[in-house]
Each structure stands twice: as structure tokens, then as C-alpha cells.
């Protein structure tokens, strides 16, 4: 009987030790969680005061983590504005300056060289993306090729918004699809649903050298994202909602990109949609993009 008790005691001790050892990383993770962040409410129900406090807190955290003074703002959508974007395939030369500008503007992770834009090198005479290539590494434009940059199409019937189980992503009234980085649970269903490869997941905390951080940041756009959540192109809403143009457009050396307010009849984007031969990608899926491709005559 004594031997049995002794065995049980030894077993229980070993067991408890094993549990403590195996569970240590989980405990460490749990200890590192901030209660404020874990219990934070959805963006849409935050009061102005709460949001202001949160913005300041994120600025302080950025200072602490990256050593940089940044300014994080929440810039609401304007009335009477509905954004649209068009891209001239006859003009695009595939230089990928847009992707690079996006990388810098939106404080993307440097290790993965992330960007919201992927540029496909397509074969002349074919719309088949299967024959396209994103990993080209030669002088552009190459003979017999044309180039098709793809980024978020800000669909009016967005599959990513539909599938999100917690409404962490939604369409704003100016047409931009945004993500609440502090509400996303990281299930990546939106990433599976998007037909345009527009979404990115933060597989690790982003790494950016302090001197490269863009200090002008939007709460719903280019602030430095936390690990484990999804992000996407926001048409640079921290710029465009103030009347500036998206960074990818400003960087384009050929003027292939046209951005503007679809509700303004005198805008360039309206002129393009009314006068050019325009198409949208994967129209058959019924996603109704706000991103258009067009050709010169």
C-alpha cells in the first residue's frame, strides 16, 4: 500500500512538472496580453473619447516599440465621395514603382518586402493569368508582354466582408473596405474568400527600421499592424480622404493610374469610365469592383 501511495505521489509530481514545463510558453503569452486590448470594443461602437485615448495609446506604444514619434489619426469618410480607381494597361510598363511606394507608405514589414500590389507580367494576346508571372526579373517592358498590377478592388459586393465571422472588416460609405486590426481574430477566412489576392496576414510582428517608418498614420489604414491579424489596401485613405492621391498613383512614372471621386461628374475617373474601353477583373464572380482596367484606343 505504501509503495502505491509513493508511486502516486511521484507520478503526480512528475505530471505537474511536465504540465508546467509544457505550458510555460502559453503562460508567457497570456502574461504579455494587455487587458485593455483584449477587452477593447469594436471600432464602430467606440465613443470619441475612447477612440482618442486609444489613438494616443497606440502612439505611445509605437514610441516605445520602435522609438519613433508618429501621428495616428482616425479620418472618417466624407459625404458625397465614392472612390474609384482605374489603370491604363496600355501605359503600364511593369516597373513596380507602385508596389514599392505602397511598401513604404503603408509601413509594410521589411523582411517579407510586403506590398498590397502584385504586378503580373502577362503574355500579349492572352488574358489567362495562368500564363502570367509575378516573379519576373529583367528589364521592362519586355517584348511580347504587357503588365497588369492587381490590388484590392474595394468590391461593392465584397466576398471578404461577407465571410468575416465577427464584422472585423466592412465597407465604408466612400467605398473603401477597411479592417479593424484590433477586432480581427485572425481566422483568415477573408484571405481564402478574396478572388484578387488582396489580403495579407501578419504572420509575424512587422519589422521596420525606425528611420523608414511613415509617421503619418491612419487608424484604419497604415498604422503599424499587430501580429496575427489581416490587413489590406485602403486606397491610402489617410491620404485620399484629405484630398491627396494614393501613394501608388504618385509613384507611377507613366501616368497609368487614375483615381478620383465617382460621384463627381467632372472627375478624371468619370471621364475614363465614360470614354475608354473599360473592364473589371473576374467580372463573372459578381463582386462589382471599384478598380477598373482600361486600354488606350
Amino acid at each position: 500500500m505504501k509503495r502505491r501511495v509513493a508511486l502516486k505521489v511521484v507520478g503526480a509530481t512528475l505530471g505537474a512538472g511536465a504540465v508546467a514545463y509544457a505550458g510555460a510558453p502559453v503562460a508567457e503569452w497570456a502574461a504579455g496580453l494587455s487587458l485593455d486590448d483584449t477587452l477593447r470594443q469594436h471600432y464602430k461602437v467606440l465613443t470619441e473619447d475612447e477612440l482618442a485615448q486609444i489613438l494616443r495609446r497606440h502612439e505611445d506604444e509605437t514610441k516605445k516599440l520602435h522609438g519613433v514619434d508618429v501621428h495616428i489619426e482616425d479620418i472618417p469618410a466624407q459625404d458625397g465621395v465614392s472612390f474609384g480607381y482605374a489603370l491604363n494597361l496600355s501605359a503600364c510598363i511593369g516597373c513596380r514603382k507602385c508596389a514599392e511606394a505602397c511598401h513604404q507608405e503603408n509601413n509594410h514589414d521589411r523582411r517579407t518586402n510586403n506590398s498590397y500590389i502584385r504586378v503580373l507580367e502577362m503574355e500579349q494576346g492572352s488574358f489567362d493569368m495562368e500564363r502570367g508571372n509575378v516573379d519576373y526579373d529583367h528589364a521592362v517592358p519586355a517584348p511580347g508582354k504587357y503588365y497588369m498590377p492587381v490590388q484590392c478592388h474595394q468590391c461593392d459586393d465584397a466576398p471578404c466582408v461577407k465571410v468575416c465571422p465577427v464584422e472585423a472588416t466592412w465597407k465604408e460609405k466612400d467605398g473603401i473596405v477597411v479592417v479593424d486590426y484590433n477586432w480581427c481574430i485572425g481566422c483568415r477566412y477573408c484571405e481564402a474568400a478574396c478572388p484578387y489576392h488582396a489580403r495579407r496576414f501578419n504572420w509575424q510582428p512587422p519589422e521596420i527600421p525606425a528611420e523608414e517608418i511613415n509617421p503619418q498614420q491612419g487608424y484604419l489604414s497604415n498604422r503599424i499592424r499587430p501580429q496575427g491579424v489581416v490587413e489590406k489596401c485602403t486606397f491610402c485613405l489617410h491620404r485620399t480622404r484629405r484630398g491627396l492621391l494614393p501613394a501608388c498613383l504618385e509613384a507611377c512614372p507613366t501616368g497609368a493610374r487614375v483615381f478620383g471621386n465617382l460621384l463627381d461628374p467632372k472627375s478624371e475617373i468619370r471621364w475614363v469610365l465614360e470614354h475608354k474601353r473599360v473592364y473589371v477583373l473576374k467580372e463573372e464572380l459578381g463582386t462589382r469592383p471599384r478598380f477598373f482596367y482600361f486600354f488606350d484606343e
Partner: protein
Amino acid sequence: MAAPAEIVGLPEPPPPPQPVLTYLRFLRRAIVLAFSGTWRFYAWMTVLTAIALVGLNAWGHQLLHGMQVTGMSDHVSWGLYIANFTFAVGLAAGAAMMVIPAYLYKDHDMHDVVIIGELLAIAAIVVCLGFIVADMGRPERMWHVVPGIGRFHWPVSMLTWDVLVLNGYLLLNLHIAGYLMYMRYLGKVPRRRWYLPFVFVSVFWAISIHTVTAFLYQGLGGRPFWNSALLAPRFLATAFISGPAFVIVLLEVVRWRGGLKFSDGPTQLLARIMRITVLLNLFMLGSELFTALYSGGAHGSAVRYLFFGSHGKHALVPYIWTAVGLNIASAILLHLPRSRTHKRWLLAACSCAFLGVYLEKGMGLIIPGFVPSTLHEVVEYTPTITEWKITAGIWALGLLVLTVALNVGLAVWSGRVRDSTRPPERAAA
């Protein structure tokens, strides 16, 4: 005046029934029972616990360092976890193949062992939930999917439907199994109205958990490999292969362990079901292959990658051909007359079927959804050792739950353990 009993010293009358206390006593006995057994039981539990702890540790690393420790990428954004999740949902739904004959067709032999199917469903749902949690980038925000507290995007998001049906199925089975066992413990005849309605609901619910899980994928227009109306029927067919296959093996284990007497009827019925479902599944596979390969186009490119590789990438080719081989082997074995008379042949057929479906409906279903990507890039995926550890850990957890549940369940079900304070009402149903 004092009561006469005191005067003549008769034994005290039985105390009035105290339902809460009786139930608590039942729970206490169940917990003690759950962890008592032979040295073999302890060895098995120790091995499972060790594997589960390895998984827990790996999950901790994933939480701390982010999901970069997995092989997933923005191109293949779901991997081993979701593959295993999908398979486990099928296993849970497969338990319905015991419930339907037992209650709907009044198969008395099946009735004797139906509790095993219900306990299996519970364990399989625990596995499902484990894989969902493992796949989340932000598990601490789990409360966001709780209706009422979070922001539950129902009915638009299919994932919210999955949350409802999986948790609902868990609760249904906990109630049914718990109620029947408690009545058996008390020696009472279960009241039909306290379990039969739930049983009927659970039958439809079992179908629904796998249909909803299929809809999760097949509703995505941007993923041609999944965007097929045949996905849900195939999910059900495979569920009714893997479920019965597992149960047949489990019944043999229970028989070998002893303690519960039951006929060979349930095993034979499940084998008969499998004889149909393996052929159905192969037929649907052929139909899908024909559509994809004969007409070509975007739908075909994922299938071509899966079966033959494309752009010089072949990671899934050995998986899927092994799966097809095992599925065909199980179909042949099940249709050999020997599988009716020789347990070994039947068990071999079940093992082939189980493994074949695991490969086909796990990695073989999830990964080609992402390869080629929506922009037709071919980026491959290989699970990392961390993913395998977590996966093994979650399955070990599921087996722990199943072992403990069966340990209690069989002791109560066989009548070995019952409430000694009251006489049995009459032979239990």
C-alpha cells in the same frame, strides 16, 4: 409522543430523495471512475497526455512568435489545421450512422452500443474546436464570435453557422449521452420526452455540421476547386466512411477490453453502410475528375496540380495517389466475402478507408483550394514540425476525451456502476 419507530427500534425509513445530491454523487463517482483503470489504461493515458503536452508547448511557441512558425503563407493561408478540422467534422457527423439505425429504425443491437457513437461525437467536436483555436492568429479574441457579447456576423458569414452547429452538436450529444447514462446509473427507465426529441434533432444536426462545413468552402466563388455543388455530398459520403470505419475499430477495442456485452450486429451494419459509401465516394471523385480534366480551364488547374503537379511542383501528388489507392483498396476489401466472416479483413478495410479519407479530405481538399492562387501563382505548402506537433497534440487530446468518456460510459452503461441507494426501477431500455 415519540414516533413508534423509535420505541421499537425499527431500522430508519429511507431518506427522502435529494436529486441535486444524487447528481453530485454521480458526478463525483464519474470523475473517480474516469481516472481509474488497469496499468494498460494508465500507460495509454500517460502516452496521450505526453503527446498533448508536446502540442500545448508547440502552440505556446506559435502564440509567442506568430504564425510564421507554420508553413502557411498569404498564398496558402490555410493548411494542416483546417485540413484536420474538416476531417474531424466528418468523424463527428459519422456517429449519426449509429444513431439513425438505433433510434429511427429501432435496431436493438445498435441500441446497445449507440452510446459509443454519441461519446465519439463529443470527442470529435473537441478535436474540431481544438483545430479552430490552433488556426486563429488571435485566440484571445475568441469572445468576438460569442453571440450577444461580440459581433456575430450571422446569418451572412458561413463561419458563424459553423460556430452554431458545431457547438450545438456538442451540447446535444452531451445532453443525450449524459441523460441516458445518468438514468442508467439511477436504474431508471429514461423518459422518452427527455431524450428522443434531442436524438431526432441530433440526426439532422449531424448532417448539418458537415453540410455547413462544406458550404464554408463551396460558397467561395474565387476558389474554383471548392466552388462545386458536389462538395457537400462528397463531404457526407466521406463522413459516412470515416465515421463507421473508426467505430468498427473502436467496437473491437471495446470488445477486447471487455466489460460490455454486445452482438456483432452493429459492426455488420456499419460495414454494410461503408460498402455503399466507399463506392459513392469513388463515383463522385470520378465525376469531379472528369469535369475538371475534360473541360480544362481554371477548375482543372487545381485538379491537375493535385494529381499530376504543375509548373514543376508536385508536393501533393504522392498524398492524393496514396489516398486514391487506399480508397480503392478499402472498396475491394469491403466487397470480398471474407470481410463478412473474418474480422481481420474488415479491420484492414476500415484502416484503409479511414486513412484514405484522411488524406483525401484533409490536405487533398484544403491545399488545392490555394494552389494555384487566385492570381494563378503556384506556391506550395509543407507543414512545419510545429504544425505536426500541434496537430498530434489535438488528436491526443481528442483520444484522451474519448478514453475517459468511454471509461465512465461503459462502466455505467454495462450496469457495473449504479446508484446503490435505490433499487432499479426495472430493466433499463
